[in-house]
């Protein structure tokens, strides 16, 4: 319990300091930071549609963040979420164009296919690591480019749009993850069913990590693989499983992005959210609930920055800078935990002194 609240304090401190740094930056370029932040947050939250878009952005970030966080728990750095997103998204797009089923079955099929695509892209680096000790950072980056060029080939070959060569044809709205009732509640926008899948994924992953023997093994391997090996846990098998699940989660993120948030897949674009997920996982301290909250926060910044740019002369890159600064502060989180610890100590000292003084007084009386 104590550890968790500590991580929460650290994250909040990082966010506040990041925002302050962003404010100073706005001042430095001659803008009014209060105005800037006002429009940044307004852009993310001012009406239902905007809120819907914030959530829609957060869905993808949440799943990517979960993917990175899950791999982190096993001591692996999944930097290949972008490629896994592309493959998962491509699989989902193919399903969306060619599979016609009643809605519940359809959703099941598209989820399974997207998960399988991402999992395939994750399990290959996992196997390479387990079998040949190839570092997963190298392997996943390679896989990113393989995915990138595969999309380059697949989209014109099988999903060619009527007008543009550079993107797939649009998916019929009934075949996307968008849902009429959700769209109606939020008055349009990009909001889609992915939000339920993402939240479900958060809780399933949390359950797996906290309550199952699989989670126990994965965490043991991640924290001390030598001890895990000594205890008879099959380290390599867990590396493979961890990368497979992490890849699958990123694949789902690709599905929500390419068949929910957007309705087509472009060639020659590496999805930047695949890397933003690392930030989400860091700020969320690799904790599923932390990932949920930090994805919502980053989602708001992402979807508000355009509005800020339109209403003021603050460039949208400021929002990205804020995100970067927050990550920087999260990475130096040791300083914060020390700060909060010393604050706690000082308070305790003061209380002790007070108690001592009152005891003395009582003695005198």
């Amino acid at each position, binding site marked *: 319990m104590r550890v968790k609240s500590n991580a929460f304090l650290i994250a909040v401190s990082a966010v506040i300091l990041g925002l302050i740094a962003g404010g100073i930056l706005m001042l430095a370029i001659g803008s009014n930071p209060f105005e800037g932040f006002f429009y940044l947050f307004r852009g993310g939250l001012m009406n239902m549609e905007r809120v819907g878009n914030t959530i829609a952005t957060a869905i993808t970030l949440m799943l990517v963040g979960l993917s990175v966080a899950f791999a982190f728990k096993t001591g692996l750095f999944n930097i290949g979420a972008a490629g896994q997103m592309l493959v998962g998204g491509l699989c989902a797009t193919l399903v969306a164009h060619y599979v016609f089923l009643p809605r519940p079955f359809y959703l099941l099929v598209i989820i399974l296919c997207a998960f399988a695509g991402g999992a395939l892209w994750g399990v290959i680096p996992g196997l390479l690591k387990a079998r040949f000790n190839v570092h997963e950072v190298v392997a996943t980056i390679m896989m990113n480019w393989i995915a990138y060029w595969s999309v380059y080939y697949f989209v014109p070959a099988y999903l060619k749009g009527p007008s543009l060569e550079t993107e797939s044809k649009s998916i019929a709205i009934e075949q996307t993850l968008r849902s009429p009732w959700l769209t109606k509640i939020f008055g349009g926008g990009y909001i889609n069913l992915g939000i339920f899948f993402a939240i479900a994924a958060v809780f399933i992953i949390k359950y797996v990590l906290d*309550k*199952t*023997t*699989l989670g*126990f*093994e994965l*965490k*043991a391997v991640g*924290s*001390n693989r*030598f*001890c*895990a*090996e*000594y*205890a*008879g*846990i*099959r380290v390599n098998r867990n590396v493979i499983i961890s990368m497979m699940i992490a890849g699958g989660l990123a694949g789902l993120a690709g599905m929500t992005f390419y068949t929910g948030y957007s309705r087509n897949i472009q060639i020659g674009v590496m999805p930047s959210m695949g890397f933003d997920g690392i930030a989400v996982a860091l700020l969320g301290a690799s904790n599923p609930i932390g990932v949920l909250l930090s994805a919502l926060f980053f989602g708001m910044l992402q979807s508000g920055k355009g509005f800020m740019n339109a209403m003021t002369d603050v460039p949208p890159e400021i929002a990205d800078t804020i995100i970067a600064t927050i990550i920087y502060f999260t990475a130096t989180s040791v300083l914060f935990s020390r700060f909060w*610890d010393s604050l706690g*100590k000082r308070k305790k000292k003061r209380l002790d002194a007070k108690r001592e003084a009152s005891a003395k007084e009582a003695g005198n009386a």
Partner: protein
Amino acid sequence: MSHVIEMLNIRKEFPGIVANDDITLQVEQGEIHAILGENGAGKSTLMSILFGLYHADKGKILVRGKEVHIHSPNDANDLGIGMVHQHFQLVHNFTVTENIILGKEGKFFLDRKGASKKIKALSEKYGLNIDPDMIIEDITVGMQQRVEILKMLYRDAEILIFDEPTAVLTPQEIEDLMQIMRNLVAEGKSVILITHKLNEIKAVADRCTIIRRGQLIGVVDVKSTSASKMASMMVGRPVNFKVDKKPAQVGRVILDLHDLKVLNNKKLVGVKDISLSVKAGEIVGIAGVDGNGQTELIEAITGLRPIEGGTITLDGNDITNADIRKRNEIGIGHIPEDRQKRGLVMSAPLGSNMVIKEYYRPPFSKNGILKQPVIDKHAQDICDAFDVRSGEGILSLAGKLSGGNQQKAIVGREMALEPDLIIAVQPTRGLDVGAIEYIHKRLVEHRDKGKAVLLVSFELDEIFNLSDRIAVMNSGELIDVVETKKTNEEEVGLMMAGVKTKEAAR
């Protein structure tokens, strides 16, 4: 009587603990002054204050009668205080000379030759026996430590602090180090020796300051004080050095090794065709200097290292090719050599660590779902039975426990498995007298329950205290197996050096 160092009424507090409470230390010019205390008693904190790594909350420090304020190790060096750390601070691909002059290179041009000459002279003066042109990675641990000493002497240190210097040394190297310390004081230096090993203090120290739980217990004259008196002052109760044990009731063969051949990390033969058996109800101790194949042998038995040839049989089951979990299930308990690397997941709570070998099977889980209440109860039972103390009980992270408590937790976990064979590698390394006594007692108890114990230790005392039979290893070979009753330390010491004695009775 002139005090070269005086630390008066030192107090240092860390969150939740008073590490030093009104401690006074007075070191005379030209003496070897030992500081004795259990792990966590506050020895290292006190020395860190003297060396400028921490700042005392209260109290003052006098060097040669003058009050000083030491803010950093550089200040300490300027006052002629040098420290030989437990973990050497050397650049491995540099020569001895280069390491020694590092940070003291002088002007723009390096005067390697001059430095080398000075180092050679120092080495001869104090009997350190170091060639200044050797590369660090080519010399032994004992020599590396002497390089650290030279580093201090090169910087004109007058007061040398040794922090647990013998932890990494072989018996012969320890002997050499003692002689070096004597040479140092003979030349007018003063030595502070931090340790919890009484025999070392008895061997070299003049006076000894004893601290317990951050408080000064007393300063004694080493020659006129018995070891057991010092031990009881350190622990706070009488200590029993000898392990009480009944004669062994030997039963069937539990572990049987036949022509076992194992490669070491350099892909050379580390274990040469060893055949050895351990029976129920006996403790077999493997004696030998560190690095003579013990690690490879144990890793082969436990399944952590593949073998090249031979067979391993456990209680009649051929486990030569079994995986680690299978071996654990058949009945191997393993107290590993490196408790921080292998024994525990430091960042995980104690509770999880206590079931790390059993979490996957009933009653701790069912259908892949952990049963937390059962796990917690089991962990709590181990902590109660083995007196594992921690800040927040089973919720404490393993890394927050003291070394002794970590080791007790591991011993408890392995004993709770009730394995037919317990392999204990250096089970008491770095522990204080109280914890050692406790762990020894538990190992003998395990033997008396009719189970087998295979002990590996680099300390002959421990081997002789516990073992019923002693197997001696040298350069990967099993020199001989002798009965403890029919041998002595001298004979085993010779075998450790590779000399085979025909008359040793089997």
